[in-house]
């Protein structure tokens, strides 16, 4: 067990995530791809990156227990069905999904999430026309304090 893993295991909030069994059959697609398929019913590989979604998140997080992320988009809210947040390397990549309506005025979400280790964070927008677009931001999870 390396130092980082040890720290993660001892971090109460993240302990469960790292200990949850990760099923990984041979030749399977990544955990993220499986989770996206299961929850949204779309092939992750077909989702295009767009500059119309902006993720604000720290480049380095001192703790994986509480990573502040903010997602905003210039795509008009009435064209948007739902916003999905995933973290590639979490045992359960899905974090949250939000259904937006025109009453929201704009696509925006700010929250704090758990990250088991350094990973990409994905913000996927499910549009009313049935297509998907996404933005990606890498967050490096490090360890702080005396231990």
């Amino acid at each position, binding site marked *: 067990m390396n130092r980082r893993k040890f720290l993660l295991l001892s971090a109460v909030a993240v302990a469960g995530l790292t200990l949850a069994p990760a099923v990984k059959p041979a030749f399977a697609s990544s955990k993220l791809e499986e989770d996206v398929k299961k929850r949204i019913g779309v092939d992750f590989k077909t989702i295009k990156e767009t500059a119309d979604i902006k993720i604000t998140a720290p480049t380095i997080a001192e703790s994986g227990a509480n990573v502040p992320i*903010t997602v905003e988009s210039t795509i008009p809210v009435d064209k948007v069905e739902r916003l999905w947040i995933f973290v590639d390397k*979490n045992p359960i990549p899905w974090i949250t999904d939000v259904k937006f309506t025109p009453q*929201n005025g*704009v696509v925006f979400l700010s929250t704090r999430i758990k990250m088991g280790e350094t990973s990409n964070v994905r913000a996927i927008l499910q549009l009313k026309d049935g297509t998907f677009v996404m933005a990606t931001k890498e967050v490096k999870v490090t360890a702080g304090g005396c231990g």
Partner: protein
Amino acid sequence: MAIGTAIVRVPKEAKKGEIIRVQMVITHPMTPPRRDPQTGQEVPPHNLTKLVLLYNDKVVSEMNMGAGVSANPFIALPLKVEESGIIKIAYEDNKGGKWEKTADIKVV
């Protein structure tokens, strides 16, 4: 003191048509399924599953979440205000817990 104590914060006043941010925080452990480090036994998860943002009793946003959201979750969502009224946040967790918290908004 208990799980489910919440704060909802919005600007006191807003202009008609203005998009405000509804900020909220609630005490909740958001524990994922885990093994007790001492006993090795599985501890079931305990997390919020759903949050609904209502504006004058009309649903604006619905949010599903799992234990990947941090403990004592902070969330901010946008809202376009048209008239004075009540903003309500309703939470549910996977053990049947239900909580509500409201805030008033005045349109000037």
